[in-house]
């Protein structure tokens, strides 16, 4: 199967198609825009009808042409993204699920209001069933008397495959302040998860490993054995921020993905798949 052409080629092809589609409208939009501008110009400035009419006609014609180019650009962008996504999915044996594919147990699904799922794709990767989608929720932000809707966009990856013998697990890289023992204690006290302190102080400072309260300590030590801990601390082995619940692994980052970033998304998925192999103790060939 041939790999899809570069994204730019899809843009060029989509532009040609969009121009062909709206090409006939270019002159009418110019004429109608100019005519409408002339009438409006003449009505607005009664004292100088001729001059104002000409100025209005010029502005209207320009707006008409501008509208034409806007239409072409929007059509080109939408078609290029859709065509490239379809070609990418065909190459990888994936399927386009599109907008509105609700994932009720996904990250942030309960946050804010007006949740929206978009651009969902699904397919296999390294023996895993992958679902990639964009998600947004909204919050109402108020400042003084005015308020506005704030969008919180994410790109989300759900990887289903091997099951872990724990209800929940979360592996994340800590921020610049490192480990704050008090915050970890609060986390462990007020949630059904507990922060696990392994035998390496460097590991505990650098990473946060949380498991469900009922998780088996021996299993944790078997997965995070000295070699794995050492490799993670030294950077020889890298895990993304990865979470496990409802029998699936979840990864998410801020911001939506775009069609042109699908290959980057694939790298992200492979990064997650590698971590899953370690967590599920799948022997590599």
């Amino acid at each position, binding site marked *: 199967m041939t790999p899809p052409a570069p994204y730019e080629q899809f843009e060029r092809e989509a532009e040609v198609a969009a121009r062909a589609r709206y090409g006939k409208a270019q002159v009418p939009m110019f004429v109608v825009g100019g005519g409408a501008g002339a009438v409006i110009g003449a009505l607005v400035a009664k004292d100088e009808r001729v001059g104002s009419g000409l100025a209005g006609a010029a502005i209207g014609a320009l707006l008409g042409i501008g509208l034409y180019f806007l239409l072409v650009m929007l059509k080109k962008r939408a078609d290029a993204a859709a065509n490239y996504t379809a070609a990418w999915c065909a190459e990888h044996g994936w399927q386009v699920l599109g907008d509105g594919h609700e994932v009720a147990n996904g990250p942030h699904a309960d946050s804010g209001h007006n949740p929206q799922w978009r651009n969902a794709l699904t397919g296999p990767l390294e023996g895993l069933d992958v679902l990639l989608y964009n998600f947004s929720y909204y919050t109402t932000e108020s400042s003084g008397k005015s308020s506005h809707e704030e969008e919180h966009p994410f790109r989300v990856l759900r990887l289903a495959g091997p099951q872990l013998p724990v209800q929940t697990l979360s592996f994340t890289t800590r921020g610049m302040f490192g480990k704050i023992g008090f915050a970890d204690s609060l986390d462990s006290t007020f949630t059904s998860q507990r922060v696990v302190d392994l*035998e*390496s*102080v460097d*590991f505990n400072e650098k990473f946060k490993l949380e498991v469900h309260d009922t998780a088996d300590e021996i299993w944790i030590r078997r997965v995070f*054995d*000295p*070699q794995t801990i*050492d490799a993670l601390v030294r950077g020889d082995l890298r895990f993304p921020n990865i979470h496990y619940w409802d029998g699936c692994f979840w990864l998410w980052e801020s911001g939506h993905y775009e069609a042109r970033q699908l290959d980057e998304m694939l790298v992200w998925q492979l990064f997650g798949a590698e971590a899953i192999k370690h967590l599920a103790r799948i022997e590599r060939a």
Partner: protein
Amino acid sequence: MDTVAIAGVAVLVLLLLGALLLYNGMVRARNTVDEAWSGVDVQLRRRHDLVPNLVEVVKGYAAHESSLLTQVTAERDAARAASDAQAASPAETALAGDMRALLALAEAYPNLRASKNFSELQSELASIENNIVAARNIYNGNVRRYNDKIQSIPGVLIAGPAGFAQRAMFIAEESDRQPVRATLVL
């Protein structure tokens, strides 16, 4: 009580609280050092336990190497007797070096190289060595953090009186850093 006295008491209480937190932090750091050392110790004991088997197998094919075999056994006993990282470092380095020399004998004795037992011991040793390296890195990382804590201000002010002594790293000599070669015997 006047304002100065109240402020003095408040400062004293804050200082005591700070010292208490510092002390607890140092205790935790020392415990992580001990915990990491027990991880190293488990792997070292696995290596010690492998020595008699390895000596027996080699003896069966290379009896002429008795001096090396005796030396490895003696070094194993010395390494077993070491109780902390400082004592264990030279003993384990010597043992690791001579165990490598034992494995290298396979080059000179084709029958030894072809032995299934020998190749199994060889790969088991390679696995143990990898675990030792990982456990040692973890231990040394914890020691570094602990020593930093008790040697820097303000930890140094209470480390001495409270009996927090500096811990030694588990040092690998140059020969010990070389990976064990696990030869595939067909």
